[in-house]
């Protein structure tokens, strides 16, 4: 290597360093791009896959789940347990117990795919936190639905709410039912 190429190499290398420093300086004067999580939060996209939850039927204020058990079969990790009873005067079973073992769930969404009555969907909760393992290994989806149903009832005319508790007359009440806000839009 001759002296001139050596000098050119050194000078070229030095220049590349200066270019790099110019770039980082240029980035340094731009505003920061991070989201300060506890203070700011992001809106989850519509298709966000959180843990599954039972859908509140905006017409009846109840779950659509018929406890058919397809989701249990479809789940690759065996993390769903459900139970339903057939109530008096109803055509289908209704769910009484829907437990998700969130510690095993891999959020693959097979259960949502197979559900014939669209009774489950992904929640938009991403910050589900607890100090208690039980809250995840036995996530009670029916209970969570109850909380939603509570809100639903508040937004409904009292007779509709009264009707909702007496399922036998439900169709008649709903025929006169007021317009319903869709509780699915409001994550609790």
């Amino acid at each position, binding site marked *: 290597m001759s002296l001139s190429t050596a000098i050119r190499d050194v000078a070229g290398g030095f220049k590349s*360093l200066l270019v790099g*420093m110019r770039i*980082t300086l240029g*980035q*340094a004067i731009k505003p*920061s*791009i991070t989201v*300060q999580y506890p203070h700011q939060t992001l809106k989850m996209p519509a298709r966000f896959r959180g843990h599954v939850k039972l859908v509140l039927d905006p017409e009846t204020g109840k779950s659509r789940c018929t406890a058919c058990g397809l989701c249990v079969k479809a789940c690759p990790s065996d993390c769903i347990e459900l139970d339903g009873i057939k109530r008096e005067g109803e055509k289908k079973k209704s769910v009484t117990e829907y437990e998700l073992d969130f510690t095993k769930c891999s959020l693959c969404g097979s259960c949502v795919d197979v559900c014939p009555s669209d009774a489950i969907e992904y929640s938009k909760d991403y910050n589900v936190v607890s100090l208690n393992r039980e809250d995840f290994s036995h996530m009670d989806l029916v209970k969570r639905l109850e909380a939603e149903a509570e809100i639903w009832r508040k937004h409904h005319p009292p007779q509709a709410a009264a009707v909702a508790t007496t399922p036998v007359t439900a169709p008649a009440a709903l025929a006169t039912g007021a317009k319903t806000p869709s509780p699915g839009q409001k994550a609790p």
Partner: protein
Amino acid sequence: MSFLTLEPIRLLLYLVGVCAFVGANAAYLVLAERKGAGRIQRRPGPNEAGYAGLLQPVADGIKLLAKQIMVPPGTDALLFRAAPLMVMAPSLMCLAVIPFGANLVARDLNIGLLLVFSFGSINVMALMLGGWASRNKFAIISSARVVSQNVAYEIPMLLVVITMLMVTGTMNLNEIIHQQAGWFWNWNVFKVWVNPLMPVTFVIFFICMLAETNRAPFDMAEAESELVAGAFTEYGGMGFGVFFMAEYANIVVGCCLATILFLGGWQSPFGALSGVLGPLWFLLKMYALIFTVIWIRWTFPRTQFYSLLNLSWKILIPLSLFTLVLTGVMIKII
């Protein structure tokens, strides 16, 4: 004669002052480093403890203090504990001769420059003992690297310093600054009529300073992707904290020296206002250099160890020898 003019009292005050200066610098330079890294990486950096993260060093310090100092079994416990102190003490010593202002110097030693270098050389020994005493393979590889690197970079650095000695003709730091009075083109770094390669000399000094203080991109000693934490692998708690502080103290000393030798120390760039505002100018220049150090760290990848040595032996030493000879010739001609 007031009480304050008594020499021992004055020295005691300076001792406290220097310790406080080093402590504050070490603490807040860590924060500045993290903030600077954050800026460069377009994130805010630590911002939770206190306003804009200003209490972060306190939190870090408390965390480090609260940690148990583990001495791994089978190590030389005495050396293991002594190494952090040995690395901290010399940098404090060096600051004793640094003139922050025309009269703001703890000990205006005739051979201050020599003192900085002689105490700076203890650093290597301390790092080496720390690495050796840890009884860890990574630490030993690291301390071997520290020595090779420091030996390689001490030579061009001293050559540059000898060049500056020839230009200034004194080892008294304050006198060196006095010689650079006037407008900023009187600073040594711009004295191209003494030596056309003066800016190059400054760059060599700066590079060597980075290498001597084991800063990125020359942080072979603690190359965390290769040697975990290098010589500090086994240190925890305040043992690590002291090493960490000493690293920043060394950077401060190095930047002070660069400021004094090349950037006119406490001289203002405009030929005026350097009396009372002297310390301000000094700190301004020093922190600008420190910012550059931080900036460099967050821009470049780490160099490879052997090309690092090559850089010193094949480029920097010949170049600094050349500037040395050139300066000698120029001084003789002028």
